[in-house]
């Protein structure tokens, strides 16, 4: 196990494509050119402290994206807002989790990541393997076809949509999440630098090659080994493969973050290797803090959401 001091020196091993900045400039342009056609439908779930809506908007690739949104009943606009992103293959958190934040005054939003376990769709056909995995979906097509690019743009688009809501104070928009959700929390804060606070718990989406080198195991990571086994068993295209994934590697965007960041990390994490998490964390130039848990792996560490809650309220 590496110490924090050692981890703080780690720079990441996944290549950064040369046209990385242009790639994301074009991506944000594409995102801004989409008419989101926002719909808010009152949810079946009712709660005395919050108005609960199913929110739908159109993301890139003409796909309809769903998010749950809980708006405090008692508010005078200027609410802080929290976007809470979910783990890989899952769906937006249950209403009761959202409502506990809404009851504290946060407009609370949970997006379903497209093509995963919720009801957001990803209407883009891609070349290559479609049987298993979203991280490798599109990796044999143009870099613009990477599935994670679209998911990232959804996170940024939703963040901007929430910032523009009349009930929300645009300077108090926060992001939070665990694993894929932690990665998306950092990502949203990078693509929308007005995000003021960011809580990343065991974040995924950084330094993908390190996952492969660490022989880490988990739903996102098996995809890398599977891809090589069936598409490139002798690793002739390894450099090209990881360079392409570099377009959606959040460590390459982390320097754009202006938010105050908290990183909660289990140092025994064998799913999202601590090195990979630090590759992104080390590139953050804004105010930041790491809260390490020596004896925890890829899991919800005790009290970390409660600690983060205090950070968001402060």
């Amino acid at each position: 196990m590496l110490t924090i001091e050692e981890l703080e020196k780690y720079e990441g091993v996944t290549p950064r494509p040369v046209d990385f900045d242009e790639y994301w400039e074009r991506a944000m342009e594409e995102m801004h050119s989409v008419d989101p056609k926002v719909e808010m439908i009152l949810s079946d779930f009712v709660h005395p402290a919050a108005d609960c809506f199913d929110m739908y908007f159109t993301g890139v690739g003409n796909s309809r994206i769903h998010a749950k949104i809980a708006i405090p009943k008692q508010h005078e606009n200027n609410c802080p807002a929290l976007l809470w992103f979910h783990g890989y293959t899952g769906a937006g958190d249950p209403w009761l989790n959202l409502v506990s934040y809404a009851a504290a005054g946060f407009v609370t939003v949970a997006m379903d990541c497209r093509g995963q376990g919720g009801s957001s769709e990803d209407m883009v056909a891609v070349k290559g393997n479609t049987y298993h995995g979203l991280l490798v979906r599109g990796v044999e097509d143009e870099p613009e076809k990477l599935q994670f690019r679209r998911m990232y743009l959804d996170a940024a688009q939703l963040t901007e949509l929430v910032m523009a809501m009349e009930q929300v104070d645009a300077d108090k928009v926060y992001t939070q999440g665990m694993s894929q959700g932690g990665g998306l929390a950092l990502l949203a804060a990078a693509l929308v630098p007005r995000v003021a606070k960011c809580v990343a718990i065991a974040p995924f989406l950084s330094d993908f090659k390190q996952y492969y080198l660490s022989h880490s195991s988990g739903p996102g990571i098996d995809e890398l080994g599977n891809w090589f086994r069936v598409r490139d068993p002798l690793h002739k295209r390894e450099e090209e493969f990881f360079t392409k994934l570099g377009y959606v590697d959040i460590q390459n965007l982390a320097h754009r973050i202006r938010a105050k960041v908290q990183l909660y990390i289990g140092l025994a994490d064998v799913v999202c290797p601590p090195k990979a998490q630090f590759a992104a964390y080390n590139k953050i130039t804004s105010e930041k803090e790491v809260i390490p848990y020596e004896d925890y792996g890829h899991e919800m560490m005790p009290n970390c959401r409660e600690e983060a809650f205090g950070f968001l309220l402060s």
Partner: protein
Amino acid sequence: MEYFTDELKAYRGITPKPEDFDEYWSRALAELDATEPCAELRTAEFYHPGLDLFDLYFNGTCGARIHAKLILPKDRSKKLPAVLPFHVYSGSSGLWLTNMCYAAAGYVVAMMDVRGQAGESQDSVAVSGSLHHGHVMRGIEGDAEKLFYRNVMLDAAQLARVVMDMDFVDETRVSTIGGSQGGGLAIACAALEPRISKLSPINPFLSDYMTAYRQGGGPAYEEMLVWFRQFDPHHKRLDEVFNKLGYVDVQNLACRVKAEVRQFTGLRDFICPPKAQAAVFNKFPSKKEIVIFPDYGHEQMANVTEMQFEFIVGAQPQKECKQC
């Protein structure tokens, strides 16, 4: 001991056949008729001194370019029989050497990559719903036309048409074979292109999804389980879901098969349960035989490949003795 028991013999499956099943496939075949294959042959990188090897590309439905490996005997002066081996779930057409035994016996061999799996064929269809894992439930949220296997089954039929159209192929002697997903696709191909003359599925998948869900294990069962857990934990849509899967259930296509059938089934198959396999076998209207391996499961069963070869190639070896 009769291992193909009365219970198995009587089993007709429990996955529904949608009311407009025949119209569904009529429309699908009309779409295939309108899809010009634009077949292209490229000399393969792999070399064999006794055979000609090509990568074959053709158009499937919905704009997909489909790839298959094509092995041709050198002597094509007379019309040749052909065999179409289909591959297992999530895999690819695999190795050139795998089915060369057929080419060495004078067969044209064409091995298709299933779109979107480990080979080169493209999965051209965007669908709503979950995309992370698996192809069985892919497209379940949209129109039944969007079901993943509809297009794969049409690709298999298109491959048969492309091969039958080759000058040197005797279209009355084209067979389909395969294990698991490959067995299911061999059946679908013979159903959608009834000129297929012999069909030999081994432990076929894609049959009677509801039985597979209730009794099976393995990847397909897991996908269905994950789907229900995520999207329908109270099974409110159970009937709708299995009715929709019924469109791409080979037991519902089996009545169209004209080929002579020899099916191989392992009684200890817990992935594609024997009942689900019996459901399709019982519905073949053509001459048929089932060979049961009582002690084998979803695996390479003893000498099954050789028994399959004998069935496809047919003739017994001529017993001649040169010394006499």
